Each structure stands twice: as C-alpha cells, then as structure tokens.
C-alpha cells in the first residue's frame, strides 16, 4: 500500500508539469535523443535532462546510451495506478450522490404513493 502510494505520488508528480507532459506526448510518437526532445522548448539541455530524469524515476520514460547521444522512449508504466485511483474516486463520487438522491427522490414517500 505504502509502495503503491509512493508510486502514485511519483507518477502524479512527474505529470504535474507541462513540459514533462509534452515530452511524454512527443515520445508517444516515437523515441528521440535528449537534444531532439529539447529542441522545441526554450530550455537548456541540462534543464531538459532534469525533466527526463524525473520521468525516468517514475518509470514513464526509459533512456539508453546510443553512441554519444542518449535515446529516450516511453517506459513500461502505463498510468494504471493513476487510472485506478481516478476510477475509485469516481465511485466515491457516485456513492455521495446516492445520499443526495435519497433526499431528491424522497424514495419512501414515492414508494408508498404510486
């Protein structure tokens, strides 16, 4: 559980940055070197490397050295933990609405009447 929480924190933390999300979108179209990934951003190579390291630690990106360049591609994680959390949260939301529904429908009264 604690392990899961840490993983979720790491995934959400990695996603909580527009540059890192764009990097994921870019890598979704195919692997690229760090400098290729950095090109459309007004950012130093060092800054981009930091972002990629965060994504790598969250296992959202993997990198390997190819010659003198470092090649990045999408990692093994598919955001299952995030979607599971969102699904669970939505269930809670429905359950909360059920309580409001009890009032709005005033079920007892209707059941007796019609």
């Amino acid at each position, binding site marked *: 559980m604690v392990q899961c929480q840490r993983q979720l924190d790491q995934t959400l933390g990695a996603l909580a940055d527009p540059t890192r999300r764009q990097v994921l979108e870019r890598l979704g179209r195919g692997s690229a070197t760090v400098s290729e990934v950095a090109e459309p951003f007004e950012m130093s190579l060092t800054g981009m490397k930091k972002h990629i390291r965060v994504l790598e630690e969250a296992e959202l990106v993997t990198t390997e050295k190819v010659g003198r360049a470092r090649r990045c591609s999408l990692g093994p994680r598919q955001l299952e933990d995030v979607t599971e959390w969102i699904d669970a949260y939505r269930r809670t*939301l*429905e359950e*909360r*609405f059920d*309580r409001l529904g*009890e*009032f*709005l429908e*005033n079920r007892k009264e209707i059941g007796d009447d019609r």
Partner: protein
Amino acid sequence: MTDNQQSTPNTSTVTTPAEREIHIERVFNAPRERLFAAFTDPELTSQWWGPRGTTTVVVEMDVRPGGIWRFVSKDSDGSEFGFRGVYREVAPPERLVQSFVFGGMPGYISLETAIFEDLGDGRTKITSDVIFYTNEERDGMLSAGMEKGMNESFERLDELLAT
C-alpha cells in the same frame, strides 16, 4: 389571474447545453416581485423548498452579495440533509446568483444564475443556469434525481403562489 392561466400546468424545461452545465426554464403564474420574494424571503422559502414530503428549515438566509444561506431539510423518514451556499449577486427582482453545496458532499460546489423575466401578463419566467466544476458532477446531480426533486419543489411553489 385568469382561469385560462390556471388551466395549463407549468412545466420545467431542463437541457444540458454544455458538459458542465444544466439549463432550466420554468414559468410561474405570479408577478416577478412576488416570485423573487418567494426565493429570498426565509418564511416563504421554507414553505416550498425541497421535494414533496420533505420539510425545510431555513437556518440562515443573508440575502446580499457574500451572504450565507443554510437550510436543513428532513425527508419522510426524518433523516436530515444540510444544504448551504453563498449569494454572489442579488438584484431584485431580476437576478439572483448563488453557490450551492450539499452537506454530504463538501467541496462539490455548483453555481446557479437565475434570471426572473416579467412576461407582462402577470406571469414570470425563470431561466436558470447551473454550472459545475466537472462533467461528472453535473451528471451525478442529474442522475441523483435533481430534475424530479426540482419539479416537485416548483409544484409546491405553484401551490404557495396560488394562495
């Protein structure tokens, strides 16, 4: 008020023009000032607010921008339900903007803008736009039975206005 107006029951039109919104239109057989008062006077509000078979106590109703409203309602079983919100805009007898929170769901806020339109024949049309933070909350509200609860509440208001 003429017999003709009384013979056709007024009904609400509920539509969803955008994914986080609910749009409601409803005509009432009452002059605009009287209808606005029914929404802003604590004694009148407690007589119609809530579905049939429920009772509502107006705990607090500070009808001015930034003022709080707080109601406690009971269903037929006697279970209690709290509701609250804040008035954002109060422009009698034309416009009322307020937030709405069900006590069982703190943090889930919707914002309602109600326009009271004088139809010129002793009737008034209310056009209400309710906006939610998310599409899920909007849909949750609809599937919880908002339309049915609101219709019953408005029928109770019709009855009150007819007295």
